[in-house]
């Protein structure tokens, strides 16, 4: 049971971080389908930092550097979307899809090249960080507390305050609802959209590194992040683009995802004798069903996905 709570919380943290990222991007008016790719890049940044920091690095330094590396790589990678969507008015869905494919392919190529350079017979795309990972964990009576959970909570509070209580956040939302109106009162829509996308890059990258350290201590980059970025998008939609509701949605989805990891620990679930594939499918099926019931009264930002053109009326 403790294990279930632990996994639920950590997966919920991942989903919350990434979904909040998506929330910022969409409130500025840019659909970010590329979150999956951004997560992969953030994961890569974090994994590399864990791999190359010397073994004796103290835990807080390690945590800080890993988080910064993941955020930085996510930020840089999200520039691809920002440039294409804001400056070149590209189809955002297409660019996002390309970023997902590119993220996994680039990370795989990079890690494989690095591994073969170290050892010619090693052609895997796996990075190990078994020791480094311990820096994030605090063991409290069998419950593995993870500092990332605190980070996710902080991100939630910060996102709520930023979006609803600051001038920046309100302007950001204006750009996603009616960019022409925002422009007419002197808000630079292009800048705001850049900000939205880049914030989603930072949060997505952070979510990526949290995901690959949740439960495992090595990551095979060929697998990308197994659709978690999309799950986060579903969380965002289910959360109706509102931070507090996103947090609740993330907990629900995290629970179902965690069940796949720990269902063997429950006697009654084990007695059902379902194949593991069923548990793997569960989060996706649940999200589909929930989306079917909640999308009708969708509160999506009105101008999302529409490139802003100054000359257009």
């Amino acid at each position, binding site marked *: 049971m403790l294990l279930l709570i632990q996994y639920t919380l950590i997966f919920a943290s991942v989903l919350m971080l990434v979904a909040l990222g998506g929330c910022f991007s969409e409130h500025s008016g840019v659909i970010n*389908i590329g979150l999956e790719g951004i997560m992969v890049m953030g994961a890569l940044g974090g994994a590399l930092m864990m791999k190359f920091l010397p073994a004796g690095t103290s835990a807080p330094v390690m945590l800080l550097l890993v988080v910064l590396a993941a955020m930085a790589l996510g930020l840089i990678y999200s520039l*691809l979307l920002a440039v*294409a969507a804001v400056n*070149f*008015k*590209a*189809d955002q*869905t*297409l*660019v996002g*899809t*390309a*970023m997902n*494919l*590119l993220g*996994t*392919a*680039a990370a*795989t*190529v990079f890690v*494989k*090249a690095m591994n*073969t350079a170290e050892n*010619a017979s090693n*052609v895997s*795309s796996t990075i190990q960080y078994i020791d480094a990972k311990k820096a994030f964990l605090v063991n409290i009576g069998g419950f593995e507390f993870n500092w990332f959970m605190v980070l996710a909570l902080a991100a939630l509070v910060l996102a709520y305050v930023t979006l609803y209580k600051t001038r920046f956040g309100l302007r950001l939302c204006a750009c996603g609802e009616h960019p022409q109106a925002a422009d007419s009162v002197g808000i630079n829509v292009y800048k705001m959209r850049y900000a939205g996308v880049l914030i989603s890059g930072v949060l997505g990258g952070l979510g990526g590194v949290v995901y690959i350290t949740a439960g495992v201590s090595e990551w095979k980059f*060929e*697998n*990308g992040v*197994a*659709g978690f970025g*999309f799950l986060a*998008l*579903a969380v965002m*939609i289910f959360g109706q683009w509102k931070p507090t509701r996103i947090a609740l949605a993330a907990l629900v989805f995290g629970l179902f995802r965690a069940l796949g990891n720990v269902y063997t620990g429950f006697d009654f679930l084990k007695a059902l004798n379902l*194949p593991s*594939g*069923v548990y*793997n*499918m569960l989060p*996706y*099926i649940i*999200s*589909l069903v929930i*989306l*079917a*019931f909640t*999308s*009708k009264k*969708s509160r999506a930002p009105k101008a999302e996905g529409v490139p802003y053109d100054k000359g257009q009326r």
Partner: protein
Amino acid sequence: MKQDRNAPTLLQRKGVQSLVASLLCIVIGLLIGFVVLLVINPTGAWVGIKTIVENFLYYPSGAARMKYLGSTLVKTAPLLMCSLSILFAYKVGLFNIGAAGQYVIGAGASLYFALGLGMPWYVCLLAAMAAGALLGGISGALKAYCNVNEVISCIMLNWISLYAVNMVLSTVKEVASPYTLTLSSTNPGAILPSLGLGKLFSNNQYVTIAIPLVVVMAILVWVVLEKTKFGYELKATGFNKYAARYCGMKEKRNIILTMVIAGGLAGMGAALFFLTGFEQWQCTQSSVPGMGFNGIAAAFLGGLNPIGAIFSSYFIQHITNGGAYLDKTMYSAQISDLISSLIIYLCGFVLFFKHFMDMRTAKKQERESVAAKAAEAAKAAEEVKTEEVSDDGKGGDQ
């Protein structure tokens, strides 16, 4: 010599623009791929990019080249079907990222009907189409009735179908390996007929009627979209579903039907590949096969035109296959994935490229017309001057 100013110049023709834009995407994509190779290992980079572009030409003998051209074509067939699926939906304003899942479930259905139920190939093919169509139909219905974004529902269905197919096909897999039983040993009747096509490709047994069939399908899709009332209705729905409704079209039915057709196309693609026996399904697969995603690249690279898709699909498959020949001690085969994903990314800029070309020609024309007007004005002024001069009856220094 008067020229009709409204006639489009070469660069203004839509077809030419699409072609130039696509070629630009390819060149930039390959260039970046080359730079990546250079960064990883400078000594082998030129050979590496050459290997990717050459693909089967890597073999010195003509017979081997034909054989591996055949293999590339075998894998092009499903890719073309996926890209047709995507472009068909895109023309109706839907982004069918679910082609990947529809492909997976098509593979599952065709292989289960072949191996588990021992059906002949045409039944398996129909089963795959039906399964893909059903999956597409779910996304379409969710979009039409529940307002669920088709991209999200498709992605969820991609993963659901992957795990479902893994579970179902585990019942017909080899005991010692994670792969499904081979068609040739279990049910040869499920293998697509070759009709002697294999002989053309140095006896490549995997070359079957699938290859001519997909070309026919591409033409069929073009005809439906461009030449029929049904296709026109679908496109009108995609353009503005409210307008379509006011014109008396059933816009919900059209959305669902589009996704059903798109799903059927992708499912059929899977059957046309797996029923050749070229590959077995791996029941432990943990990621959705890239075929459907590469289909997006092919669809956009082909300028969203079914005929263009034939060539772009071949190109994408050509470089993907070429990646397999790379020197593994230096580079990984995923370089090809990297290049094709870069090409998809660049396809996002196609609109900009086209706009740029329009601007260029428009500017050039404006300059020309300004110059022409200036010349005319100068001429007119001169004529006036000469008239004045002749009126005066004095000689001028003309």
